[in-house]
């Protein structure tokens, strides 16, 4: 039951001190630069492999940050109370989104023909491609990509800006403005993640299509993003910050991880089962490749690892409220990595798994860079929205 008083003295603002993490920032930067440097070699010596590896790593981090924007937006749209203490970290993750536009440039400028086969097919060669030329053409492809980044950057920046402004003046007008951006943000994330999924991932085989695809990409993104949030909060707590975040908050975050493990399985199963059942060759091709040779083991492991393992573990309250949630969060993030890997790489190595150094370098490069940028975001504002009108509810949270 809520408290009836409407006036409290808020806890002091917490600022992140870079000294607390030692040389992590530098290590991440070195990883970022090193990984990107190795990938750059791949760019010159094995352009196609580079393209797929880069797309894989890019998509992994991009979907996680899109998920963070979704969660931030959702909290505002639903006028949520529980999340105020952890919301700033969602905002910080979402604030990374504009940087992805930069990371996408190598793909769209130099690698498009390697990734998306339709790119260089002249009109009149493939009647199926001719049919959808109104959508699959260079100009519209550029425009769409620009649109995704523009909208995502605008919403994520606006939400962060308003939230940090509220730290200074505590005005309710920011809450109302954020609510509007939050509602719009859900629409933006839904459309951007669906159509980016269609363009960049489904487009790896331009003959293949599935109406569920956008929802599938979203399901993975939201679940893994919540897992990353759990880890960020845990790390900050271990450094002595965010003491007000307690097992009740973890409980709710764990519930969302559980919900999205189930949702991912539901969406993945529905998509797979319907394509398998109808057995139309132009649709089954996607799963035929991924169920062949060594990819089959990856696909099976994904089903078990992304759903059957975390599901019973997360079902228990004890997991969600204790340190074990961190282990599950790491696991889900690894499974999201596997999911994106199984989406992207089989389109290149159709006969089976062929690891490449550039898969790793792209992952370390983009991951390092994003980690470094995240730490920069971290010091720019308070660690939780200090004067949010709903802060009290979040502090006194009880499930």
């Amino acid at each position, binding site marked *: *039951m*809520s408290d*009836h*008083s*409407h*006036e*409290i*003295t*808020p*806890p*002091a*603002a917490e600022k992140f001190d870079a000294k607390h993490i030692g040389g992590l920032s530098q290590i991440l930067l070195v990883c970022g630069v090193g990984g990107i440097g190795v990938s750059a070699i791949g760019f010159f010596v094995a352009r196609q492999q580079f393209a797929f590896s880069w797309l894989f790593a890019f998509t992994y981090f991009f979907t996680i940050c899109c998920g963070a924007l979704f969660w931030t937006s959702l909290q505002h749209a639903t006028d949520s109370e529980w999340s105020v203490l952890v919301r700033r970290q969602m905002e910080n993750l979402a604030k990374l989104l504009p940087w992805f536009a930069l990371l996408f440039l190598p793909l769209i400028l130099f690698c498009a023909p390697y990734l998306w086969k339709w790119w260089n097919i002249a009109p009149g060669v493939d*009647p*199926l*491609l001719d*049919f*959808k030329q109104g*959508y699959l053409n260079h100009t519209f492809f550029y425009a769409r990509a620009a649109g995704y980044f523009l909208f995502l950057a605008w919403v994520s920046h606006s939400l962060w800006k308003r939230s940090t402004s509220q730290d200074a003046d*505590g*005005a*309710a007008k920011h*809450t*109302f403005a954020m609510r509007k951006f939050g509602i719009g943000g859900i*629409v933006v994330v*839904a459309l951007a993640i*669906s159509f980016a999924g*269609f363009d960049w991932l489904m487009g790896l085989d331009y003959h293949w*299509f*599935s*109406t*569920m*695809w*956008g*929802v599938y990409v979203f399901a993975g993104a939201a679940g893994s993003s919540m897992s990353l949030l759990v880890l960020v909060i845990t790390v900050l707590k271990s450094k002595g910050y965010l*003491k*007000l975040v307690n097992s009740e908050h973890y409980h709710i975050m764990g519930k969302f991880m559980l919900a999205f493990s*189930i949702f991912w399985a*539901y*969406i993945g199963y*529905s*998509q797979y*089962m*319907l*394509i398998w*059942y*109808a057995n*139309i060759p*132009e649709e089954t091709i996607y799963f035929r490749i991924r169920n062949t040779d060594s990819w089959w083991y990856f696909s099976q492991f994904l089903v078990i690892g992304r759903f059957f393992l975390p599901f019973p573990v997360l079902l228990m309250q004890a997991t969600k409220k204790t340190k074990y949630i961190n282990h599950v969060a790491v696991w889900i993030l690894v499974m999201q990595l596997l999911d994106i890997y199984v989406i992207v790489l089989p389109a290149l190595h159709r006969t089976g798994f062929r690891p490449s150094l550039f898969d790793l370098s792209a992952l370390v490069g983009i991951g390092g860079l994003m980690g470094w940028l995240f730490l920069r975001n971290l010091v720019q504002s308070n660690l939780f929205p*200090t*004067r949010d*009108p*709903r*802060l*009290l509810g979040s502090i006194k949270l009880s*499930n």
Partner: protein
Amino acid sequence: MAESTVTLTTPPELVRVPLVTNDRKHTWITDKVSNIVEARTPLWWWMAFLPCSLIAVIGLLCIGYQISNGVGVWGENKTVGWAWDITNFVFWIGIGHAGTLISAILFLTRQKWRTSINRAAEAMTLFAVVCAGIFPGIHVGRVWMAWFLAPIPNANGIWPNFRSPLLWDVFAVSTYFTVSVLFWYTGLVPDLATLRDRAKSRVAKYLYGIFALGWRGSNRQWRHYEMAYLLLAGLSTPLVLSVHSVVSFDFATSIMPGWHTTIFPPYFVAGAIFGGFAMVLTILLPSRLLYPQLDDLVTRQHVDKMAKIILLTGTIVGYAYLTELFMAYYGANKFEFFTFFSARIGINNSGWYSWAYYVMMFCNVISPQLFWIKSMRTNYVAVFIVCMFVNVGMWFERFVIIVTSLAQDFLPSSWHHYHPSWVEIWTFVGTFGIFLSLFLLFMRFLPMICMFEVKLVTPEADPHHHPKKDQEGQH
């Protein structure tokens, strides 16, 4: 923890409105809700019940006529083998989603506003599933063979096809109905005990006593109750999703253009919640008018929240419609393209039923957009009108999916129009009679608002509640 120097004040516009208005006390809630059941049957009730039950009887007569004469009395033909029967089935089963969603999912997500509407919504769910269940049973033609829907061991060793989604439907719907009944009944027990304790006539005391299962409200009983309710909520939640997903499989596993599309399961579920909430409001708004004493329990805030859910799910449905259209184009399959762009949208005037598609689009996607405006969400007339549009739109959605795909299928020489016969029309109208009659009976004999749960969301239920302190604070 160190404290900052500024104070954090909740601005007046962000102070949460109480769920029970006018600071009603627990006894007031018990009196007003129980009074609906205990008072003399009002005249309006008879005026509503008699025509509804008459319509229900007409519907049952139509079913009897159809069973004795065969499905030939319907308007179906060789091309359009499924039409109003399955449309009505999916329509009703969809409506039967909101109740369990409100009860189970909103319970698990700790949405306290559910408490004053969950009982009526759950009852509505059950009655909608009853109406839905009629159609698969009678559409098989030889209804005396309907037992064959269930895999019952028999001497001939003949089994239904386990790989058919139609059989999965039987499992999904019957499981959903069973768990929903249990869930609803479990939640009723404490309130039935209240009615038992208040009953003046011996018959009422006896009957409510039987169904109250000896409830005495002891600590031990409450503990068991809460565990049972939580477990049932947990069980019901996947069922809410699975039923309509399995219903969507009936279509999506086929290779029929317009039916085979992978987004069907979540799209059907969102549509079902959408239609279900519209029907909850369709019933709740007039009930509220007839029982003005409920104003403090079912407030504008509740209607506002339900309108928001309608807006959200309507927009999700809109996303699914547009994704389907987009993929029909992107997939470059000419049959799929024809179904969506010619048969449904009506390019080149080739869609026989494109009018139905536009009715669906307007009712389901355009009309709920009115709910972006707050004053519309709290205006009962506007909400009621939009909900009526949604009811119509959700019926048309199923009609569009089923009939447009079948009537103009792969082979133009086999295309065939479909016209419903009077038997079909009256069977469908009859199900409204059954639905409303059952709901009126429910209003008359059972507490339509969950009294003990509503009490839990009042300030009085707070262990730290100090009435005096509150009064002082108001000065």
